[in-house]
């Protein structure tokens, strides 16, 4: 596989991996009220880069799905749309976090098993 094709494949798989995680992160972050810009800033500060053009439409979609509520309010002499996790969003976030932790534990176990098998094989060889 050429380096360009490998990069393209990695980008595509990375996008798939990130897609669901971003929704979980956004829902989790919106347990506290934010408007678009501060939400993005807080996600970046937490180590999760996300493009504005991805985040802002995502907020609209999650609101349409009933997972977020929004409110226009004036702050610093400017009208801003603040988002917050809805009651329904709270329930779904809990379910998603359980699922995410389960997957995480399973992947860690798989990686741990693979590492110990490698060590065992190395020990036998030496």
């Amino acid at each position, binding site marked *: 596989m050429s380096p360009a094709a490998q990069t393209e494949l990695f980008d595509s798989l990375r996008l798939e991996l990130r897609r669901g995680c971003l929704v979980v992160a956004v829902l989790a972050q919106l347990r506290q009220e934010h*408007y*678009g*810009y*501060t939400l993005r*800033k807080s996600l970046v500060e937490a180590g999760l880069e996300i*493009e*504005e*053009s*991805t985040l*802002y*439409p995502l907020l*609209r979609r999650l609101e349409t799905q009933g997972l977020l509520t929004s409110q226009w309010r004036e702050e610093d002499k*400017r*009208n*801003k*749309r603040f988002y917050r996790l809805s009651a329904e969003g709270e329930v779904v976030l809990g379910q998603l976090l359980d699922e995410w932790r389960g997957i995480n534990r399973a992947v860690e176990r798989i990686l741990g098993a693979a590492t110990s098998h490698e060590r065992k094989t190395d020990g036998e060889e030496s």
Partner: protein
Amino acid sequence: MELLERYLQAVGEHLPASSRQDTIAELRTNLLAEMEGREEELGRPLTEDEAAKILEAHGMPIMVAARYRPQHSLISPALFPIYWYTLRKSFPLLVLAYVVVEGMRIVVQGQPLSELPAALAHFWSIALIYWAIITLGFAIFEYLQQTQHTKFALPHWSVRDLPKLERTEKAPSLIHDIADVIVSIGGVLWLLAVPNHPYLILGPGAKFAHQMPFALAPQWHVFYWQLMAVFIAMATLKGLTLSPGLRPHRDWLKLGSQALGIGIPLIMLQLKPFFVPNAGSTQTVQSLAVINTGIALGLKIAVAVAGVKLLWDLWQLVRRRTGRQPGFAAIW
């Protein structure tokens, strides 16, 4: 801030009217905050270039607007396998129906075979219309699903209803191919010998051939060598299948030989009449006309049948080479 307003205007052009104002207002707030955040970092107002960079990084207006719209697809990924399966399964039927209809038209209406290329060229417009109709049907179905919020459900199926295991195809037998080549070469030699030794085709009746009231048309001498060339080319292609280097292309070579085979009745059709009356036997002229017409009709039917068979074999070969999708077919 003119740049920002121009950008927002461009995004707004691609947004639905019902949510345009609200979306643009929110986008303006966020982009302004983004710019102010950058100004805070730099400790000075942004230059026009810096503002332009922020907006350009946000994305092309049409793409940004598209992300605010509900995701639409002409045919969704869930429905696409069914759409593709329908096209794949029905296309050979379309080809068959077209060949039958056109073949009948050529045979019954006595259309010259020179119209065959035009008929083949016309097929692609028929195929395009057919594809458009199927695609439109699925697109309407998809639209109704999205607007009526009905979910497409696969029909019930059971693993026990799946077809029995297919036997893996045997590798083509080399002995069979050698025999085929020997028979073809024998056929060529036999045809080469026939003009000088008519008993090879007429048997003991050859002695009385000159007494018959009709004889082969003189054009046979011209077309005979064209026919021989086709037979020799067919035998050569079959012979090439024995070459180890060309063995992987055996099926294509066989198909080429089969295609050449259609040339035999096509060449024969060029030499009407096939039989002419011998001098002094004027009474047989009418009977010979009927015989010649009958032979021509038989040859036309042979061309049509061989053409359909060739297309079918080609289709099967392409399917084998491109691979199949086992299991899916079984539920329909």
